[in-house]
């Protein structure tokens, strides 16, 4: 299955026909009662049906009441359909995911022997072997080997990814396929609770709970409905009083179907019918962008974000810092620097390390040497020393070499601690500091190389700011979101890149603790913080942030800590996530406004119709007919038009509910004015036109 190519059409034929059937299934009162506004309509439809059946049994055929009944049921069905369409799109995805979760066989390692078991039998901490062609049976961590893995089943991305033991790319997901090589995986989650299972549960909406805003809005809608119930019920005595006063002897014009029609038209059915569809589709839009949210609450929180913490690497810059220049110290030959730098980088599998090896090869024809032959011992990079390097023992008459490369700070500390502070080297160090600072100011990263405590020179690493990123940050600023760049770089490099990218603030030389600290500080001031990360050391910060987005390529710990997982592992996705969250809230607000504004026109349609004969002089119309400003043909056509309009507007707005209203990165007031104009004023005017048109149409069709 390829998620990238999945239907973007709003009404897929299969989904629509399934939703049509579901709309009837949802007539189950136990399901209807979950949506109080529509439940009122549902009860109204039942009451009207009872009246109509009673009439039919009595041999009376009242076409008007029958039509009202039909349209009331259609209103309920339309709302059910809207919800079913939204759910259907998730279900279709869940089905194809489930197909993938076949009965995979796993090759479990027990005391170095292999045994075949089904994936369901795997327990946490079991070891399994996967070779080229095998499907990975469970979520886990690579503990040995490196392999290319096809994760298209989960991400829709066809290019294989590398998964290797150690580091930040060790997590593997069940259901993905090993394309080459052999890896040993330690299982980290039991069957039924894997990433794939959670994903299926997610898209099916099985665990869908109402979000805080949804609950608050539901309360508002229930209260509005309650008010209108009071209005409609109290209207009956007022009407009876008035009819008596007017000396009318005939039974009240307010029959039950008419009162129900009035209530249904006034109740906020538009938003009530579409509310759950909006929520589900918000989640769906996340999934379409290959983001998996743990809960709807997280999606909603994304809309409220005040501060975005972005890792510099990969988000703001293209990521891989590349070596671009060797700058030797005054007394050093540049080839010697390149040679030492290359040796120190041979075992360094980071893109930076590789780029140093490549640059040395390109510039000076230096080839990578056999590490084993040199009996070299590599010193891996550690967060404490901020250095990496190599120690080569004296073999075959060659002198021993001890090469280190690292940042300005770390090398200076290294040299000072090693006692190598004679005049020459401290002079070299000062020059290096100046050059290094220059490089940093220009947005590069200086990497110092020392051999046997002698400063050889500087490698210049450069990182490129992504195109168009500045514009995105400007948009975020307009939305009222502050962007903070986090980087392990020194303050100079950080400042220069921050200025180039146009972020509001930056934190240089950040450690996992400073990230966590920073998030706590912002939260203490009442701000909501979003952060994106992939490494295990990001996990605490991801858990602390209000919206924590973990990269799918990241470690299992990071994926567990965040409340969203980006399957594409694309850090700029955070901006889209915020937009979807905002869109979700805005769509609800806009449709609520629309729904309430609609009521004005409905009053002008129904009230004159109800009371047109009140206080009428024989043969003429009553004074309240003056309220019939739409000049609707007859009382019956007016009421029916209003009910039909009320039902049709739900269907008409389904695409809007599913797609969400357009989001523009503007300030709050600009957005408010814009939406008020469209959904407030528009919601006021549209029903006048719509009801009038329906009135003309049903009169032309002689339905009343």
């Amino acid at each position, binding site marked *: 299955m390829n998620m990238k190519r999945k239907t973007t059409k709003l009404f897929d034929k299969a989904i629509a026909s399934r939703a049509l059937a579901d709309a009837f299934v949802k007539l189950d009162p136990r399901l209807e009662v979950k949506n109080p506004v529509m439940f009122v309509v549902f009860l109204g439809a039942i009451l009207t049906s009872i009246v109509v059946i009673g009439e039919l049994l009595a041999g009376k055929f009242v076409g008007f009441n029958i039509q009202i009944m039909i349209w009331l049921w259609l209103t309920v069905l339309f709302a059910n359909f809207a919800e079913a369409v939204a759910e259907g799109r998730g279900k279709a995805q869940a089905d194809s995911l489930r197909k993938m979760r076949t009965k995979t066989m796993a090759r479990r390692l027990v005391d170095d022997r292999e045994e075949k078991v089904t994936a369901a039998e795997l327990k946490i901490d079991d070891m399994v072997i996967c070779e080229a062609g095998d499907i990975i049976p469970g979520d886990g961590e690579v503990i040995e080997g490196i392999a290319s893995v096809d994760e298209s089943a989960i991400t829709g991305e066809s290019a294989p990814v590398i998964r290797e033991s150690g580091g930040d790319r060790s997590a593997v997901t069940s259901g993905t396929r090993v394309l080459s090589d052999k890896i040993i995986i330690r299982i980290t989650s039991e069957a039924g609770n894997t990433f794939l299972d959670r994903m299926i549960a997610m898209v099916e909406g099985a665990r869908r709970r109402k979000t805080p805003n949804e609950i608050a809005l539901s309360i508002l809608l229930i209260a509005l409905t309650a008010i209108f119930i009071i209005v409609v019920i109290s209207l009956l005595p007022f009407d009876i009083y008035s009819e008596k006063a007017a000396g009318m002897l005939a039974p009240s014009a307010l029959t039950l179907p008419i009162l129900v029609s009035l209530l249904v038209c006034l109740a906020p059915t538009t938003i009530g019918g579409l509310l759950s569809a909006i929520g589900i589709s918000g989640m769906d839009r996340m999934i379409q962008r290959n983001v998996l949210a743990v809960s709807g609450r997280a999606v909603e929180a994304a809309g409220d974000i005040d501060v975005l913490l972005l890792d510099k690497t990969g988000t703001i810059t293209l990521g891989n810092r590349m070596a671009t220049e060797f700058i030797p110290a005054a007394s050093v030959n540049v080839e010697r620097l390149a040679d030492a730098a290359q040796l120190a980088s041979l075992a360094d599998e980071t893109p930076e390390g590789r780029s140093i090896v490549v640059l040395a090869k390109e510039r000076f024809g230096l080839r990578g040497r056999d590490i084993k032959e040199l009996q070299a011992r590599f010193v891996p990079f550690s967060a404490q020393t901020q250095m990496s390097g190599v120690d080569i023992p004296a073999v075959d008459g060659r002198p021993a070499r001890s090469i280190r490369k690292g940042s300005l700070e770390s090398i200076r500390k290294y040299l000072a601690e090693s006692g190598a502070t004679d005049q020459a080297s401290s002079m070299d160090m000062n020059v290096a500091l100046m050059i290094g600072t220059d490089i940093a100011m220009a947005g590069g990263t200086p990497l110092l190389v020392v051999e046997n405590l002698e400063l050889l020179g500087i490698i210049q690493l450069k990182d490129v700011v992504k195109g168009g990123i500045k514009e995105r940050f400007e948009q975020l600023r307009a939305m009222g979101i502050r962007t903070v760049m986090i980087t392990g770089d020194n303050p100079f490099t950080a400042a220069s890149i921050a200025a180039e990218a146009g972020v509001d603030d930056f934190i240089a030389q950040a450690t996992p603790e400073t990230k966590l600290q920073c998030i706590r500080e912002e939260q203490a001031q009442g701000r909501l913080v979003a952060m994106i990360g992939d490494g295990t050391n990001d996990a605490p910060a991801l858990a602390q942030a209000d919206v924590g987005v973990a990269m799918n390529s990241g470690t299992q710990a990071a994926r567990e800590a965040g409340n969203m997982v980006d399957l594409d592992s694309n850090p700029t996705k955070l901006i889209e996530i915020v937009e979807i969250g905002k869109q979700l809230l*805005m769509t609800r607000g806009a449709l609520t*406004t629309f729904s309430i504004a609609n009521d004005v026109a409905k009053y002008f349609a129904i009230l004159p119709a109800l009371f047109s004969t009140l206080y009428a002089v024989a043969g003429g119309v009553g004074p309240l007919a003056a309220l019939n400003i739409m000049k609707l043909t007859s009382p019956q056509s007016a009421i029916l038009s209003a009910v039909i309009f009320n039902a049709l507007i739900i269907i008409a707005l389904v695409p809007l509910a599913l797609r969400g209203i357009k989001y523009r990165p503007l300030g709050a007031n600009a957005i408010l004015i814009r939406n008020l104009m469209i959904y407030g004023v528009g919601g006021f005017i549209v029903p006048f036109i719509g009801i009038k048109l329906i009135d003309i149409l049903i009169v032309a069709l002689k339905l009343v």
Partner: protein
Amino acid sequence: MLVFGIRTVFIAGLMVGRTPVYLGKKIEAFEVKMAMVAVIAPSFTILVFSAIACMTNAGLSSLANKGPHGLSEILYAFASAAANNGSAFAGLNGNTVFYNMMLGLAMLIGRFAIIVPVLAIAGSMVGKKTAPFSAGTFQTDNVMFVALLIAIVIIVGALTFFPALSLGPLVEHLLMLAGRGF
């Protein structure tokens, strides 16, 4: 007014794409619930009590005027009582057991069913963190908000009372223009 303000903030705040914030405090389910209690209570009192008055002899016997003006008198008496004003048209004899009881009850509800929820809102808001102001925050101190608040008060208020009023003062006015009285 405050409860209408909260309602306005909630609807408008959603439209801006954020959890609604008023005076730096988030408006959540509890605040909305309390605000709605404070809105429903007086509406309920005015409409239902008036309806009871219209249906009972005790309610109708106090009327000096027939026709729509009589309905206006009843509605006014209850609206005024619920708003803790307590006046009534001269045409309505308020000093009967029925009206003393009902108007008194209306007054109690109109007072405490508003005071208590509003205090509850205040109590809940005190405990909340103040959200900092940003360009994405919906402002509640400008002309825009005032206009919106007025619009919401008029529309929601009108939607609640329009049917009843149309049978009372409105039709009375139209009849008067037509030169007919009761």
